[in-house]
């Protein structure tokens, strides 16, 4: 599709029709067009305004976490604290079991991410490359399963964990998350996009199926693996609902469930904004680090494919 010009006669004829039909709208259009000659300046202004709105909450939170309770409450907008106070951070590591929560989050995230990346690509490889009876059925079931919304699964998941005696254990938090249909889908799409000839050569040379997968295919799939890693890490680090229904003892709280408890007022009196903000900032750091490391990757891929 290109905007090739029409013959002049047709052009004028059509214009005459347009003029006859839409005199009022045409006038409006022209002024709009002229007005938008100042477009660049206007859109820079808009962008800067939007960027400020998107960034400011994080800046305010960061500075608020270094304020005293009274200062944070009275001067929430001020970006430089009047008196610098590290009390919020000290309290998080002494009065609040933040280290325990962080450790639980790390355990869950690391195990879930490693398992997910491995098991998802394993299944995806079989579904895209190995021919076996039932493959189509498995794949279409996966697609069906992908459309079940997570919140609908909260009660069901609790019921099953309870049934198997896995409620309130690390196993119960981790095992349900170590495979996800969406990840299999991403990997399958990727495997199908790389040529099959290299693998076939390896297989002819006598490499077994697992070895072919492990030493030939996986290294080639690095871009998709990175995508899956980012999604799994972020997903399990930020996971909340699933932990709410799979645990109850304080010893199994993660940063999300623990800090959510802080926010809904477990600490008793006062709003304690600096403490809450410090907690929010600390739990954001790991995903922020991953985000900035893989920023190019996240922003440039058409990674929306896994969602659409």
């Amino acid at each position, binding site marked *: 599709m290109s905007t090739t010009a029409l013959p002049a006669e047709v052009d004028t004829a059509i214009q005459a029709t347009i003029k006859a039909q839409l005199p009022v709208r045409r006038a409006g259009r022209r002024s709009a*067009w002229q007005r938008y000659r100042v477009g660049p300046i206007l859109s820079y202004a808009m*962008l800067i305004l939007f*960027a400020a709105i998107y960034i400011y909450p994080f800046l305010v939170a960061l500075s608020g976490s270094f304020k005293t309770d009274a200062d944070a409450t009275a001067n929430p907008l001020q970006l430089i604290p009047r008196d610098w106070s590290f009390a919020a951070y000290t309290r998080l590591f002494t009065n609040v079991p933040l280290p325990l929560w962080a450790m639980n989050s790390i355990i869950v995230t690391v195990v879930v991410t490693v398992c997910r990346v491995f098991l998802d690509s394993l299944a995806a490889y079989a579904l895209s490359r190995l021919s076996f009876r039932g493959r189509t059925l498995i794949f279409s079931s996966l697609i069906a399963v992908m459309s079940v*919304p997570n919140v609908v699964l909260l*009660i069901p998941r609790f019921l099953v964990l309870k049934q198997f005696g896995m409620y309130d254990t690390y196993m119960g938090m981790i095992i349900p998350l170590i495979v996800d249909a969406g990840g299999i889908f991403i990997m399958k799409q990727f495997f*199908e996009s790389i040529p099959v000839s290299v693998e076939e050569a390896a297989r002819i040379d006598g490499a077994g199926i697992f070895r072919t997968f492990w030493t030939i295919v996986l290294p080639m799939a690095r871009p998709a693996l990175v995508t899956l890693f980012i999604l799994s890490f972020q997903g399990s680090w930020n996971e909340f609902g699933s932990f709410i229904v799979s645990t109850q003892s304080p010893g199994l709280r993660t940063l999300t469930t623990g800090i959510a408890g802080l926010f809904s007022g477990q600490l008793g009196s006062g709003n304690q904004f600096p403490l809450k903000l410090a907690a929010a900032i600390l739990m954001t750091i790991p995903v922020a680090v991953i985000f900035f490391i893989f920023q190019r990757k996240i922003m440039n891929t058409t990674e929306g494919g896994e969602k*659409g």
Partner: protein
Amino acid sequence: MTANALPHAARRGDKRPTRGNGIRSGEGRYGWLFTAPAIIIIGVFLVLPIFLALWVSVSDWSGLGSPINSQVGFVGAKNYQSVLTAGGLAEQTFGTSIRNNLWFVVFVVPLQTAIALFLAVQVNRRLLRARGFFRTAFYFPSVTSAVAITGIFIFLFASSGAVNQIIAALGGTGPTWFADSRGIFHIVASWFGVGNNPPALSGTALLELSWWDWLSGPSVAMCVIIILVVFTTSGTFMLLFLAALQNIGGEIEEAALVDGAGPFRKFFGVTLPMLKPILFTVLTLGLIGTWQIFDQIYILGGGKPANTTLTPAFLAYQTSFKSLNWGDGAAISFILFAIIVVLTALQRIILRDRSNKERLDKPLARLLRDDSIRSNGGAQ
């Protein structure tokens, strides 16, 4: 879907014999071996739970012991009736949660789509300085956890918080955001002297709520959650739009510019029609996602104030885990599931219709194009 889109590699395997001593021997065994972990995990923790919960939703299980034992009785649709037609408090609460979520959807979906599209078009411009910075700024809220963002918003929207101080600086008085249960349309009505629950609208409409209650609009507290969700999702959707825009490439838009179309017309006449598929994807994802809001509701106090931020997703959790009314809770879950499935199906149907309507849109597109040619001639 993908199987059809990328058939070559996958199909090649099918044509070859599965048995024998060729290089494909043993693929059947390995195929099942490789997919076994996924099948077991998804089967046990996703498919099985759904059936177990389906049973609970038609049983009188009290939460004690296993739901599968001889003392748990089958009660048919009783749990569904108690939230849909029984006329009691359970129905009214469910109705309220549906009302809240409907308004939430009505505000969030158009807002997040429009903002995401606007931002994507802006940061896609090739001449933009600091493009990377802007993209990062807009996408960053999407990667942070709902818990952290909600915590920050509690601070921002506190009664003497940042937002209210800005409002005060502009000469207004901000509400006590999280404690204000008034629906925004009720507030607007009160400006015109319409009192609370006018007789014309006080009749019961549906699910034990009056027309007046249904028409309340989101409560002031819900508005904070609306802003919060738009803030965190617009970045994700911006990336989807951005990917689509990059696929389109700059040439066509440049051609439109050369032909003299202004940025405004270029957007509505050229860019937007080409973005239609991704636009519908974003709308669908938005519609599905907005019915699943849970984390933010949980952290903000589970429906406070006066149940005006209660959503079906949270109500299902609350009914089961807090009120220990497992049957009702599971029933609400499945009603929610049905809503989401229907919305998805509806969207699919509309999408299919759209492709037929394309023909109607063409004359308009031509009109715009010829119009732009004319402007170009005028400029010369």
